[in-house]
């Protein structure tokens, strides 16, 4: 029931924030309507960071507690994080063409490190398929998730560490949040979209976690079924051997 309320709340918030971002907020003086892409680009990037941060923390939690539920959290966050990273890259490309004049530039550190982030977590999801043993898989995935998480601060600070095409953060620090470079109407539209997407992320996380637990239960049932079958086959072979003696 709670998850359903969360889902309906997320839907309403996303619809309201989208109507505001697409139709009510005025176009930017310099960027024109292309500025509206930022209202989905920034939340997507934020949720990619959040997801991969959760994957890393759940991985640490698994290595410490050896609880497979934490591995399910890590898997759920990684899959959703991959989706939001792809959304951030796609929306960034759609914004880059009208504003920068190019869809993509490999020399830009933010763009390149984000592409690397996507590749790392797609690799994480593929890596998980290499073994059927849930405990071995969880332990290995936790280590890979931690190693991949090193790229998160590199992506975030790349705009400050290196020069590139990508601009610095609009609201990247507490001081910037209180005194943002953008007009308040734009900031309100952006923050409301971030909030709406974060609630949607929470709902997706709950549902993906439920799916991961159901998959784990079915995997365990299948394993038990195989063991029971092997036992039956073993007993039958033993009986045949006894009968032929």
């Amino acid at each position, binding site marked *: 029931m709670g998850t359903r309320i969360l*889902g309906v709340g997320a839907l309403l918030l*996303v619809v309201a924030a*989208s109507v505001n971002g*697409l139709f009510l907020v005025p176009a930017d003086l310099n960027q*024109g*309507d*292309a500025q*509206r*892409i930022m209202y*989905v*680009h920034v939340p*997507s990037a934020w949720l990619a960071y959040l997801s991969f941060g959760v994957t890393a923390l759940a991985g640490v939690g698994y290595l410490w507690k050896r609880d497979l539920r934490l591995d399910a959290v890590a898997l759920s966050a990684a899959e959703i994080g991959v*989706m939001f990273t*792809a*959304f951030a890259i*796609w*929306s960034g490309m*759609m*914004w880059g*063409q*009208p504003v920068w004049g190019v869809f993509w530039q490999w020399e830009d550190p933010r763009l390149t490190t984000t592409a690397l982030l996507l590749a790392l977590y797609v690799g994480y999801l593929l890596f998980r398929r290499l073994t059927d043993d849930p405990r071995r898989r969880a332990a290995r995935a936790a280590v890979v998730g931690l190693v991949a998480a090193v790229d998160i601060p590199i992506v975030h600070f790349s705009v400050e560490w290196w020069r590139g095409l990508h601009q610095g953060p609009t609201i990247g620090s507490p001081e910037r949040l209180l005194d943002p470079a953008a007009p308040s109407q734009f900031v309100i539209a952006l923050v409301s979209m971030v909030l709406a997407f974060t609630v*949607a992320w929470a*709902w*997706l996380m709950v*549902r*993906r976690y*439920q*799916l991961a637990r*159901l*998959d784990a*239960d*079915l995997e365990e*049932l299948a394993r*038990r*079924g195989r063991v*029971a*079958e092997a036992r*039956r086959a073993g007993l039958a072979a033993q009986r045949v051997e006894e009968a032929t003696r």
Partner: protein
Amino acid sequence: MILLSIMPRLPPDVWFIVAAWGVILGGLALYAAALLRRIAARRALAGTRPMDDEPPGGRE
């Protein structure tokens, strides 16, 4: 026809906005629907699973 008559009048940036927002909101909706469908399928499967003592191939 209505869409075709409106299309040339829209500023070029609009197509980038439609592409960005469309893929993201559409992608979110599709992913959410797929999750719900997969959960329902797993629950149905778990409810009709063969028992451990069932012979291979199922009961008659």
